[in-house]
């Protein structure tokens, strides 16, 4: 004999279900659907993907969405090999990548990439040239930039990173990055590392900048999304979701949701500029 559910418990659960935020409208596309979406790759995308996944899974308990990082290189590889349904990249795909895997790209946000330091660092402005020299290992002490007498701790990203690629191509003009730089695996990890190291410099997606890290002016221009959008701040890229061939079913719904008004609202609240 099964014990009947305790009425208090039942009421509690009912109450809990009622307390879930209800988003009418765009989430209806997922109501009653089942299936899974595996997302991997670009790490700038993660906050947006996670929030969208949370809302969708609360609306449609039959849908499972997993979000993994790895970097843009992983995004291309996982989507290309079919190991993930959506592979995110923080850079446009190369022709070779499109040709080899038959990937389709869906942009949803504009995002700048900025050199960032710890908030305790008094250095508030850098020139393009200084950034290049710092990362090349030619400038090694903050004193040379008007800061404290302390060695500069360099942080960079692994080669799978789209953020690294954009920073390297546009900011560093494909110049060298000192081989002794610490390597971290994501935008989130970069932010965490810089927030804990007063003498550090690294680079992150502008969407990841908050009070725990500081972005010095670049040639007098504040690295903000608005300046990136208007073209005043030069180091920018789009964020893409990529699928192998045209997306189907709930994967297509997910992409429309991210590109739609509610996805745009999430994108904006996470600090990116929605493309639409």
């Amino acid at each position, binding site marked *: 004999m099964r014990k009947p559910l305790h009425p208090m*418990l039942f009421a509690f659960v009912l109450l809990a279900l009622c307390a879930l935020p209800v988003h009418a409208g765009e989430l209806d596309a997922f109501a009653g659907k089942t299936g899974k979406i595996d997302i991997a790759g670009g790490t700038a995308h993660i906050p947006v993907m996670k929030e969208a996944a949370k809302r969708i899974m609360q609306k449609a308990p039959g849908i*499972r969405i*997993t979000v993994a990082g790895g970097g843009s290189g992983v995004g291309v590889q996982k989507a290309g090999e079919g190991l993930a349904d959506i592979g995110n990249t923080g850079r446009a795909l190369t022709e070779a990548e499109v040709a080899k895997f038959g990937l389709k790209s869906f942009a949803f946000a504009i995002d700048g990439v900025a050199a960032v330091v710890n908030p305790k660092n008094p250095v508030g402005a850098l020139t393009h040239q200084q950034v290049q020299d710092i990362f090349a290992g030619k400038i090694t002490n903050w004193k040379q930039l008007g800061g404290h007498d302390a060695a500069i701790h360099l942080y960079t990203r692994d080669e799978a990173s789209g953020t690294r690629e954009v920073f390297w191509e546009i900011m560093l003009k494909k110049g060298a990055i000192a081989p002794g730089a610490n*390597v971290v695996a994501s935008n989130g990890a970069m932010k965490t590392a810089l927030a804990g190291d007063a003498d550090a410099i690294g680079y992150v997606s502008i969407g990841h900048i908050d009070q725990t890290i500081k972005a010095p002016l670049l040639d007098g221009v504040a690295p903000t999304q608005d300046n990136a959008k208007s073209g005043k701040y030069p180091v920018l890229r789009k964020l893409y979701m990529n699928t192998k061939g045209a997306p189907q079913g709930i994967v297509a719904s997910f992409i429309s949701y991210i590109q739609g008004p509610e996805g745009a609202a999430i994108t904006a609240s996470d600090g990116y500029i929605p493309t639409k």
Partner: protein
Amino acid sequence: MADALFLNGAGGGAQSGASAANRIGERAALALLSGAAGASVLCVAGILGFLAWFSLPLVFSEQGGPGQLASVISWTWQPTSGHFGILPMATGSLLLGASALGLAYPLGLGLALFVNGLGPGWAARPLSALVRLMTGVPTVVYGLASAFLLVPLVRAGFAGTSGFSWLAAALVLALLVLPTIVLLLDGQLRLVLPGLGLTAAALGLSRGQTLVRLALPLCGPGLKSAAVLGFGRAVGDTLIPLMLSGNAAQLPHSPLDALRALTAHIGLVLATDSQSAAYGSLFACGLLLFCLSLAANTALRALRPATGRVGVRVHLGPGLEAAASALAWTAAVLVPAAVSALLGFLLLRGAPAIGLALFFGDTPPLSALLHGAPVFDGLWPACLGTLWLVALASVLAIPVGIAGGIHLAEFATGRAARLAAFCVDLLAGVPSILMGLFGFALILLLRRTFWPSANTCLLLSALCLALLVLPYLVSTTHSSLTGLPAGLRLTCASLGLSRWQAVRRVLLPAARQGIMGGVILAIGRAAEDTAVILLTGVVAGAGRPGALTDKFEALPFTIYYLAAEHQTPQELDLAFGAALTLLALTLALFALARRLGATAKAVGRPAA
């Protein structure tokens, strides 16, 4: 026929039918046992084969010409400009392993001497308990505690380093390999010391003199084995270098510089395009790691103690006892201090986070437990994932491992037995990241051949974890069986039991304690490993595990992920909470193993 007669205690013609059936069952059982032993050989062959096959394109390109081997065996790692050199990583691994061993070995030797008589008797027991406790600390837990305690200390203590450095990684790796060294040396000393009492008394030696002048020289091969094992363990670890060494692909100029180990390199770069030379170079790294464990294993075999060899060294200078005593005391102070600093820090940071919200976030716990309501911002899905992972890996590994161990101990003979034993030892020394790499390559292969929808998933991770723990099961079963008193076997033979009957009715029940201990050890190892699942399907946000073919969350990965990626102080608290949870789980498992062992001993009479 005689077998059945004695076994059943009653004679008669009716027994002959049952006896024939028994024989068939017995043959089947023996075949299964040898199959299980063969499985470990297959695993080793499979891993080696995969590594070799996937690094082949480096030697021969698709066009038939020479591959990019020259580019891989170079000092520059810059994939964006076509440089795939893995020498900095190989050197990094060797430097890390050697320095960790250099730190851990004297301390380990000191501790082993301390608990065997160089220190006061009252301190020996708690120190031994501490060392056993250290074996249960997951590497990712060391990584987390050190990243937030040791790294800032190194940063503050030395100018010009971010703290993520060779030094930080080597210090923590030394702690990681220390118990391996201490336990081996302690075991050796306990083996030789009892036999030296008379000699020592006759020569009028003190306890310290006995230890240093008589016991240690007798442990000769054991001393070297401890070094080799410690080195292998240090080189094979992934998470500590990944979290603490800074991962710069360069040759470090000082211990304060960042470096990248081979294992961390595989974990970090698996990311890249699977047909490029970067990917091929990963398998070259894997092959290199495999060769390192092969070399270590071969060295260990060469070091097997020769029987009947006795060497007593006398002329080693007068200060030897004093030096040994100083070393022992240093170790006995330093090691507990370091461990309690790290674990105390963990407790301090993690304890406030412990609570229902740690596990269930803002989801009501009861609705999560009873109705499977999705949990965000809580550890519950990761706990479930780890439970599933461990259960699946156990189901896969335990029967095969125990059967393989029985076969090796009781039935295997000749060349096949030596090969199987060699493969089991080798498998035990293979770095766990290679199991992950193997799993990942397996999926790619399956997708390209007859299972296009295969993907990294819970089942794959469990399978790779099963490979990881298999050798523990085989060797503990093997050693508990071979460690039984010889008289037991003679008794079985004199009773006329067949070898299978002897194993089933007498030897296995007698060895139950050791086998059970091995099982629990294996479960603990499966629960804590991060490197394997890193490459085979774990993700940071998957919710509760749905199906075997789904991605999943797991506690050790959650710790690793949040340590690097926490966006708020609350998320970091979650990481410390997760670390405490995992630590409590593994320590409980080890305690259980000891308790089970003890109770099993009390009732462990052979039941014929």
